[in-house]
């Protein structure tokens, strides 16, 4: 083979090898692209799944990229991303500028307020970092609305807890004078009876003419003695009854606010009675209460927690009745029952209130869900009640008819085993 033919053969072989290399590279490139596309899709899903808004912002504030939660938070569509500037949203652009001057890898964190068309003023916790060589800024923002609301509720709950603790002490302080007021009233009641007996003897003597009755008769007229005679024993009796009622209320408050969370055998019927006494002010002008308490064995439970559940249900019943009473002028009815059902104690609180509309029934146990006016309900009552009942291994349910009323059922297992499992 001559030189030219050999060179030509080598050139042809080179072409074949290079073609094969190009094919291999093309295949590799295709596979790399596929892997890259999959990785990008995974990353996008991951970024959309994180419970925070992730944004990439240019140094001048132009929004370059945003994940799903960020679009939702800012109330933007995908197509808005290239046409939005964060300077029109943030209350201060200073942290953006600060992170650009910070060393690579440094993270700047700050609480800020973003104003969006969809949500108005939004409190957010934002972390800023510089993105590599592109001098862009990555921001991760967390919506603080729920946390802020929780902080308010927590402060409110702490205040209520303090009041509860004070109530226990005040109840004790009231109890002591009440005891001697009651004792003295009982003494006065006996004394009035005795004095009236003495007066009767005097009157008999007057009628017999053994004493001069004229000044006595004059004084009787002046004092309206007949009225005093008929009213004094009743007044003493009513005062004593009032004191006894105060004493029972104080006793109920002490029992209700007992701080112990430890579980111990408790009489659920006694808990219901105590709670009714404490809640009386909530329903006494609106509804009559009917108690239908069946025989229940003692249940191992946290009585103070269950008291809270019963209080929530009774107060909710009164609030549900209020609008109907306001409209019709008629008193409503709260029917409280307890009974033994298999291995469970079942407590029901039925009201003749306005009922729960179908469309919100699935949300009533959600934390912070309330239909009550501002200041009347925090939306935590039923959520807390259900968590308490769950912790006892029990369950909560309800039946409701709009315009007729609602019945809540609380089922607490009697067996210690069920309680242990729940704990």
């Amino acid at each position: 083979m001559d030189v030219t033919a050999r060179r030509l053969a080598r050139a042809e072989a080179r072409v074949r090898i290079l073609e094969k290399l190009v094919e291999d590279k093309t295949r590799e490139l295709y596979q790399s692209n596929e892997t890259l596309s999959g990785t990008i899709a995974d990353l996008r899903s991951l970024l959309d799944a994180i419970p925070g808004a992730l944004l990439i912002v240019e140094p001048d504030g132009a929004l370059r990229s945003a994940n799903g939660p960020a679009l939702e938070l800012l109330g933007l569509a995908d197509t808005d991303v290239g046409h939005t500037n964060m300077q029109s949203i943030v209350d201060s652009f200073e942290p953006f500028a600060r992170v650009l001057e910070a060393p690579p890898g440094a993270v700047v964190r700050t609480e800020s307020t973003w104003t969006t068309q969809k949500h108005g003023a939004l409190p957010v916790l934002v972390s800023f970092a510089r993105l590599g060589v592109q001098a862009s800024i990555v921001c991760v923002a967390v919506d603080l609305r729920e946390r802020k609301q929780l902080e308010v509720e927590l402060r409110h709950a702490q205040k209520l807890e303090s009041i509860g603790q004070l109530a226990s002490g005040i109840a004790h302080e009231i109890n002591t004078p009440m005891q001697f007021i009651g004792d003295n009233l009982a003494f006065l009641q006996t004394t009035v009876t005795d004095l009236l007996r003495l007066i009767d003897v005097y009157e008999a003597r007057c009628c017999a003419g053994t004493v001069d009755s004229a000044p006595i008769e004059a004084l009787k007229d002046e004092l309206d003695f007949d009225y005093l005679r008929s009213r004094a024993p009743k007044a003493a009796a009513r005062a004593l009854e009032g004191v006894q009622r105060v004493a029972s209320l104080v006793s109920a408050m002490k029992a209700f606010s007992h701080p112990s969370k430890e579980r111990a055998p408790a009489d659920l019927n006694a808990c219901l009675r105590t709670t009714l006494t404490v809640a009386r002010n909530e329903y006494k002008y609106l509804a009559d209460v009917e108690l239908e308490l069946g025989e229940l064995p003692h249940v191992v439970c946290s009585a103070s927690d269950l008291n809270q559940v019963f209080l929530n249900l009774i107060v909710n019943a009164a609030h549900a009745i209020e609008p109907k009473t306001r409209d019709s002028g008629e008193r409503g009815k709260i029917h409280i029952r307890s009974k033994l059902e298999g291995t469970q104690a079942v407590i029901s609180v039925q009201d003749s209130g306005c009922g729960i509309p179908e469309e919100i029934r699935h949300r009533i146990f959600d934390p912070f869900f309330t239909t009550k006016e501002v200041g009347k309900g925090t939306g935590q009552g039923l959520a807390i009640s259900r968590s308490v009942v769950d912790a006892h291994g029990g369950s909560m349910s309800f039946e409701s008819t709009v315009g007729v009323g609602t019945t809540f059922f609380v089922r607490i297992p009697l067996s210690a085993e069920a309680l242990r499992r729940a704990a």
Partner: protein
Amino acid sequence: MKGVVFNLLESFILERFGAEALEHVLDQCTFTTTEPFVGPGTYPDTDLLQFASKAASHTGVVLDDAVREFGRYCFPRLLSMLGAPGRYSDSRSLLRELDSVVHVEVRKLLRGARTPQFTTRDTGPQTLTLEYRSSRKMCAFLEGLLAGMAEHFHEQLTLRHEHCQLRGDKACVLHLEYAVSSTRAA
């Protein structure tokens, strides 16, 4: 060693000594591959050494001198292959970026390329110390490349090869002194 160097050696022999000489040298060699060399391919260093040795022997040139001349021949072609002929204005600016830029580009273009390590130190306005480390110990080829580089930038290079890996040193240390070439000055 990447196939691009084999191809350059083929071109060098072809241009300097003709097609028959190339065929003769190839016939003398017993490479590990029977296929022709292609640029992106990777072949044993011993094949390149054999190729260069046979070529030097055939042309009657001392091997180191032949390798130096081959390095000088390679420089403008390698620079062109990297697509950076206008990026550098003199040898020193290129040498300073040899590891951080040039060899990064080489590794991007030629997968699996094992590039040597270079460090530079400016020792004066026109002088530079270059440290070269490579398991291939191709310092004669490096000297040729440096000469080709100086020619490309119209510089006059005075080179002093102080330490050498071939003499058992850990690295080759080359002191380079540049002066503006008379062709450029004119």
